[in-house]
C-alpha cells in the first residue's frame, strides 16, 4: 500500500519523467531517422522542382507537381495498371493460397515435400521469378509456346507473342505474381488452419455436416483473422508491384504494363527528376495508406 502511491507520485515527479523520456529517446531517434525523416523529406521534395539535369538548385514550386500529376497520362495509366494487377492478383493469390494451405494441412504421412514446395516460390527473389517466367513466355524459346505447338493448339509459323500484346502481357504478369505470392498466402493461412481445434470438426461431424458445410461453417469463419492479415500484406505489396513486370516486360509493350512503382523508378533514376518522382511516391503512399485504413477499420469492426 505504501509502495503504490509513491509509484504514481514518482510518475508525476518531473525527474522521473525525464528518465522515462531518456530511456525512450534512443528508440524514438532511431525510428525518426529511418521512418519519419525519409517520409518527411519525400513530402518536402515533392514541393520542389528538383530536376538534376537543370544543373541549378532546387526551386520551390508549391503544389505545381501535384497539379501535373492530375494531367499526367502516364500517372493515370500506371495507376490503372497497378490497380488492375492488385484487383486480379490479390484474390487470385488468396484462392490459390487457400487451396495450397488446405492441401498442406491434409494428414499426409510425409508433409515436408508439400511444405517445401510451398516455401520455394516464396523464397525465390521476385526478379528471378520474373526472369524465369519471361523465358517461359518467350515467343520462340519459351516452354509455353513449345507445349501449345506440340499439342497442335498453335501454328508453328505464327506462335502467340505473349509478352508483346498488351492483354496477354498483363495476363502473363498476373499469373506470375499469383504463382509467386500464393505461397506467402498459404503459409499464413496454414498457420491459421492449424489453430482451429479438431473438436470443432468432430462436433460438426456429429451434427451431420458434410465436408463442404464444414468448410464454410467452421474453416472459413475461424480462418477469417488470418485471411484479413494476409490480405493486408498482399494488397500493400501488390500496390508496390515492381520487380516482376520490370523483369518480364519493362512495362511494355509501350506503357501497357507499367506500374506506379516503375514510373517512380523511371522518373527518379532514369530521368533524374527527383521532385516529380517524390510527388508520385507521395501519391502511392497515400494509396497504400487508404487501403490499410480500410482494412484496419474492418478489423476494428470485427473485434467489436
Amino acid at each position, binding site marked *: 500500500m505504501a509502495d503504490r502511491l509513491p509509484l504514481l507520485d514518482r510518475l508525476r515527479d518531473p525527474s522521473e519523467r525525464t528518465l522515462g523520456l531518456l530511456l525512450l529517446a534512443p528508440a524514438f531517434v532511431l525510428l525518426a531517422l529511418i521512418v519519419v525523416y525519409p517520409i518527411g523529406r519525400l513530402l518536402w521534395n515533392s514541393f520542389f522542382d528538383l530536376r538534376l539535369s537543370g*544543373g541549378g538548385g532546387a526551386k520551390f514550386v508549391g503544389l505545381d507537381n501535384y497539379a501535373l500529376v492530375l494531367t499526367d497520362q502516364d500517372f493515370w495509366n500506371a495507376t490503372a495498371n497497378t490497380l488492375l494487377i492488385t484487383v486480379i492478383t490479390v484474390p487470385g493469390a488468396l484462392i490459390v493460397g487457400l487451396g495450397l494451405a488446405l492441401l498442406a494441412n491434409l494428414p499426409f504421412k510425409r508433409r515436408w515435400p508439400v511444405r517445401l514446395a510451398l516455401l520455394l516460390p516464396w523464397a525465390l527473389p521476385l526478379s528471378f521469378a520474373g526472369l524465369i517466367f519471361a523465358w517461359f513466355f518467350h515467343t520462340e524459346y519459351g516452354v509455353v509456346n513449345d507445349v501449345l505447338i506440340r499439342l497442335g493448339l498453335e501454328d508453328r509459323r505464327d506462335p502467340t507473342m505473349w509478352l508483346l500484346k498488351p492483354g496477354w502481357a498483363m495476363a502473363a504478369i498476373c499469373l506470375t505474381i499469383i504463382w509467386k505470392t500464393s505461397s506467402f498466402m498459404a503459409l499464413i493461412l496454414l498457420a491459421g488452419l492449424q489453430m482451429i481445434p479438431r473438436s470443432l470438426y468432430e462436433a460438426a461431424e456429429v451434427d451431420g455436416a458434410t465436408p463442404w458445410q464444414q468448410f464454410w461453417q467452421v474453416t472459413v469463419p475461424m480462418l477469417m483473422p488470418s485471411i484479413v492479415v494476409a490480405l493486408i500484406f498482399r494488397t500493400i505489396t501488390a500496390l508496390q508491384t515492381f520487380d516482376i513486370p520490370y523483369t518480364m516486360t519493362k512495362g511494355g509493350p509501350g506503357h501497357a504494363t507499367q506500374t506506379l512503382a516503375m514510373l517512380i523508378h523511371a522518373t527518379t533514376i*532514369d530521368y533524374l527528376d527527383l521532385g516529380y518522382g517524390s510527388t508520385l511516391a507521395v501519391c502511392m503512399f497515400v494509396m497504400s495508406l487508404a487501403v490499410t485504413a480500410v482494412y484496419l477499420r474492418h478489423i476494428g469492426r470485427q473485434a467489436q
Partner: protein
Amino acid sequence: MTFLRRTTLGTMAAALAFSLAGFSAQAQTKLRVFSGGQNQRPDLMRKLFDQYQAANPGITIDIETGGATSELQRQYLSTVLNAKDSAIDIYMIDIVNPAQYFGAGWLEPLDTYVGPAATALKPYLPVYASANVVDGKVAALPAFADAMFMYYRKDLLAKHGIAEPKTWDELSAAAKKIQATEGNANLQGLSIQGAPIEGAVCTFLLPYWGQGKEFNDAAGRLTLDKPAAVKGLGTWLGMVDAGVIKKNVAEVKTPDTVNEFKAGQAVFAINWGFAWDRFKDDADSQVKGKVGVMPLPAMAGGRSATCVGGWQWAVSAFSKHKAEAAKLVKHLASPASSKFLAVEGSLLPTYAEVYTDADVNRQAPWFKDAAAVVVAGKSRPLSKDYGQVSDIIRTTTSAILARTKTPAEGVDETEGRLRRVMR
C-alpha cells in the same frame, strides 16, 4: 652510455617512423575506377592500370565493374553520384551520357587539366570530339569507339551471286532471295534490336538518318521530320511482313542478335563492334571466316549513316584526388592506350591514325573497313535529359514493332513527349 644509446636509438626509430609515414602518405593516392561491365573489357583496363602504376609509383588503382548494359551502369552511377559519394574517382560512361552527367554536376570539367576543348579534343575522331564537349567545356575524354555495323554472311552472298546491298530495299530483296533458296525455316534475313533497350534508339534512328534527316540541331533542339520517321519505321515493318525480319522483333535484344547470327541463323545482322570478335573467336560460332562487315545501307535517295557508341573516361566531381585522376584519364585516352586496346582486344580506336597503324591492322584487319563506318557515324541526341529522351524513343519504337501502335501514332506520341524535353 646506455642512456645515450637509448636516445640515439629512439631518435633513429622516430626518424624512421616519420620517413615511413611520409613515404606511405605519398604512396597512398588510391584511385578507384568504375570501368563499366564485361563488354567494356575490365581485364584490358586492368592491364592499362598496371602499366600506369608501374610508371607512376605513389598511385594505386582499384577497379570496380558494374552492370552488363549501359542502362544498368547509368542506374548504378546515378545512385552513387546523386549521393555525392567520393568513393569513385573516375568512371567510364557511354557516349550518350556526358551531357547528362555534366548537367547534373557529377563530373569535373577537365579544361584546367588538359587545356581548352578546342585543342584538347582536336586529335580525336570528330564525333567523339563533339560528344565530350558540353557548354564549351571538356566533360570527358574518349576511351574507345564503337558503332553499329552491318554484318553479313559473305559465303551466302557469294553463293547466290549477290553484291553488298547499298539500300534497304536492295538488302530486303537480297535477303528474301537467299532465304527462299536456302530452304532453312530458321534463317532470318535481317536481325535488328526491337526490345525496349538502348539499341532500339539506334533501330529508330538508322532508317531515319538514312534519309539524310537530322534528329536534332547543334543546340540540342528537336528537328524531327515526322513523315521521314514514319517512313523509316515503315521500312522495318515492311521487312517483317516480307518475312525478312522475324515477327517477334520487339523481343530481340543485343545478345539475341549476336547468338542467332553466330548460330548461322541470319543473313544480315546489325550490331555493335564487339560482336565481330564473338563471330570470329567463340568456340560455338558456326560462321567463322564467313562474316563480312559493310557500311549500313541508305534509304533510296538518302545516304548511309550509322549510330556511334563508345565509352568515355570522366573524373567525378566528388573525387578527393581530381588532379591525379585527371592525369590518369589523360593517359587512358592517349593514342598509346587506344592502340593497346585495339591490338589486345579489338576495341575500336578513337584516333583516325590508329586505324591505319601497322600493328593494329595485323591484329584486326577489318579495322580498315571499320574506320569508314565509324567516321560516317552520327551520335545519338546529346541531351542533358538523355535518360528520358532514350526512354521515350526506345519504348515507342518497341511498341510500334510489336504493332500495338501504328508508326504514325507512335511518331506523334514520340514527338509530343520529346518536344517537352528537348526544348
